[in-house]
């Protein structure tokens, strides 16, 4: 590309995605951004200067050929662009929506050095939606059965990636999912207004059409153990069971009525659709005053979900300052627009209930930032004597998740780290047990969708090698 054209392209401003206005959207669960139109997408695609050594590709954990697909978008070849992405990323409609792009591909985009980076995530989302909405998703050629069978435990992004990859190589794949709907955190955790469930359904349906068998209501470790899977005809097992054990704070009053883990709160609302109670049978306490404890994506999702149930106010309580919040900037920004309040440098010390054991207040203490800790962030320390109370009737605890013990308890040979996560070889996902692989949050602790998929990708290659060579 000649320097003049580069200059021209650099002049184009980053295209905004049209979105629902905040006043309206806090009263519904529809998706917040509407996505690009074809015109906006082509305009945005022109901002990419088609680097010879594209840094963006290295910033993407699954190394999508970003300049290539963006060139196709600029030329209006949207379906081809979608196919290009799908060579390396099976779930682009999902990643385009939930990837922390500002920390990955877009962080290193050259255009971003002087201007705003190319909106890679938005373009990825656009082409995936375009392909799906036009029903032009084609099923790839599935080779003849290799005679091998693989069991995948858990249907989150890690498990789904493994299933898709291996079925394309000709292996038979069965996915076992504990809940009644496949998708993992994508269906029970991330809310509808950020990731519509019909998109996850479409991806799962695509896998089914490729021949993946999905068995719901199957809790491995209870219905069948890993050893039983291996002796009942499966040649390899992939464990992608996620980080599904909610942490509590160990402070007084945590079992009062009205105190929820974010997992319970979000599951009631997303998976069980409690926001449509009594049309749907599962209830949730809506509350007049709601606090959410934590500063990550989960806290933001819980808080923005709470807003949509129309309480008087929703406040995030976070023990560090705004700068340290791990949640995506876009989400914090969306939350603020919708009327979310924040109390930084604050930590709850106890929950206070009424005579019936229902939450009525939370006592907090102010914090100040001290010396940096292991993570490099400054450690919050309580300010003596600064306790104060806030009146609340619903509190949601979103301070992270640990590893679920169901599988390790019944598979003692699996080596775990001190937090209960399964230890694997980084390049292959091999566990300490022959024929058993693992990846995603059960290995990493709470991480991201794309990292879980990256793990799935590497594990599926290693599984394929193991199945074809028999070597461990």
């Amino acid at each position, binding site marked *: 590309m000649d320097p003049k054209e580069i200059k021209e392209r650099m002049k184009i401003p980053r295209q905004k995605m049209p979105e629902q206005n905040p006043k309206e959207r806090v009263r519904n669960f529809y998706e917040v951004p509407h996505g690009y139109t074809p015109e906006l997408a082509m305009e945005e695609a022109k901002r990419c200067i088609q680097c010879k050594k594209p840094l963006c590709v290295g910033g993407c954990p699954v190394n999508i050929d970003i300049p290539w697909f963006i060139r196709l978008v600029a030329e209006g070849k949207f379906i081809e662009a979608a196919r290009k992405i799908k060579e390396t990323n099976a779930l682009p409609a999902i990643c385009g929506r939930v990837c922390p792009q500002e920390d990955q591909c877009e962080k290193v985009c050259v255009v971003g050095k002087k201007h705003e980076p190319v909106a890679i995530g938005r373009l990825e989302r656009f082409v995936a939606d375009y392909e799906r909405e036009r029903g032009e998703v084609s099923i790839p050629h599935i080779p003849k059965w290799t005679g091998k069978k693989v069991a995948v435990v858990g249907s989150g992004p890690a498990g789904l990636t493994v299933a898709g990859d291996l079925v394309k190589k000709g292996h038979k794949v069965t996915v076992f999912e504990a809940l009644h709907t496949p998708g993992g955190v994508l269906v029970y955790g991330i809310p509808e207004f950020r990731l519509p469930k019909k998109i996850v359904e479409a991806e799962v349906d695509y896998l089914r059409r490729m021949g993946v068998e999905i068995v719901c209501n199957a809790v491995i470790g*209870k219905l069948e153990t890993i050893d039983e899977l291996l002796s009942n005809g499966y040649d390899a097992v992939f464990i992608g069971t996620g980080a599904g054990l909610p942490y509590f704070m160990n402070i007084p009053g945590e079992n009062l009525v009205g105190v929820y883990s974010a997992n319970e709160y979000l599951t009631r609302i997303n998976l069980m659709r409690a926001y449509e109670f009594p049309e749907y049978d599962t209830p949730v306490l809506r509350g007049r005053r709601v606090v959410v404890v934590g500063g990550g994506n989960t806290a933001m999702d819980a808080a923005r979900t709470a807003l949509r149930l129309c309480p008087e106010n929703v406040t995030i309580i976070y023990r560090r300052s705004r700068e340290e919040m791990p949640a995506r900037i876009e989400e914090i920004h969306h939350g603020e627009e919708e009327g979310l309040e924040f109390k930084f440098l604050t930590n709850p010390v106890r929950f206070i209930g009424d005579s019936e054991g*229902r939450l009525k207040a939370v006592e907090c203490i102010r914090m100040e930032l001290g010396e940096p800790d292991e993570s490099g962030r400054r450690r919050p320390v309580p300010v003596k004597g600064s306790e104060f109370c806030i009146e609340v009737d619903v509190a949601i605890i979103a301070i992270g998740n640990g590893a679920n013990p169901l599988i390790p308890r019944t598979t003692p040979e699996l080596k775990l780290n001190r937090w209960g996560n399964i230890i694997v070889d980084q390049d292959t996902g091999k566990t300490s047990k022959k024929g058993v692989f693992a990846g995603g949050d059960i290995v990493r602790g709470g991480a991201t969708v794309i990292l879980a998929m990256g793990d799935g990708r590497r594990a599926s290659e290693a599984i394929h090698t193991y199945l074809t060579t028999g070597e461990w």
Partner: protein
Amino acid sequence: MYEITEKVELSHTVYLFRIRAPRIAMKRKAGQFVVLRLNEHGERIPLTIVDSDTGEGTITIIVQEVGKTTALLCEMGKGDRILDVVGPLGSPTHIENYGTAVCVGGGIGTAPVYPIARALREAGNRIISIIGARTKNLLILEEEMRSVSEELFITTDDGSYGHHGFVTQVLQNLINERRKIDFVIGIGPIPMMKAVSNVTRPHNIHTMVSLNPIMVDGTGMCGACRVTVGGEMKFVCVDGPEFNGHEVDFDELIRRNRSYLKEEKIAMEEFTYHEGKRCYERGA
């Protein structure tokens, strides 16, 4: 889909169902439960597996009508299908030969007590059973319990059958008579389990109870089922459902189970007034 293969009325609000679920039938052990969801709009509710038939590939559950979901289930019949059944969940009862075991069942609690009594007997225990209900026609599983027990005591709150009074009174009498008791399992309404634990505590008799908190997933993911046992937070669906009765904070459990009283009432009213909402997969 999980087909109902048989339905038996045990009392006017309590029904027994056999449900086709061959894999669960093969795996389940005494003390475990399933979570089921009747239809797309349904709630997930936990129910104890009372028995199973591996030949037929069925599990048996016994349900008492208390709210919308259980009322809808009790309207379903042979051939109808339940959308989701997941299990077996929870840890099985720890079975060993204690010597003499007293099995106490209150109301619908007799349903989960029965498979445990049977397993304890098979392990060599001498079984004394005490089962109770509010009134005679609410008493369930009398014959089944008799068949696994050396001695069977029956109580009703209104005196319409058996001893007039509570199961705990019989238990107290046995203790007062200095009968040898090595182990007690008590399952029933929470106040009853609390009372049983209070009766045995001064005598240091090892006592287990089976807790029934509100659940959602049943796999340890949500924490809805948390209870305080021995001062520690436990998740009933993975750490339980059985715990040492002397360590359980029953009052907290009672309060937590009242979380949604208002919503449960709304759901039940909707259900009673809107015939159209009674949707489930009908058999042919």
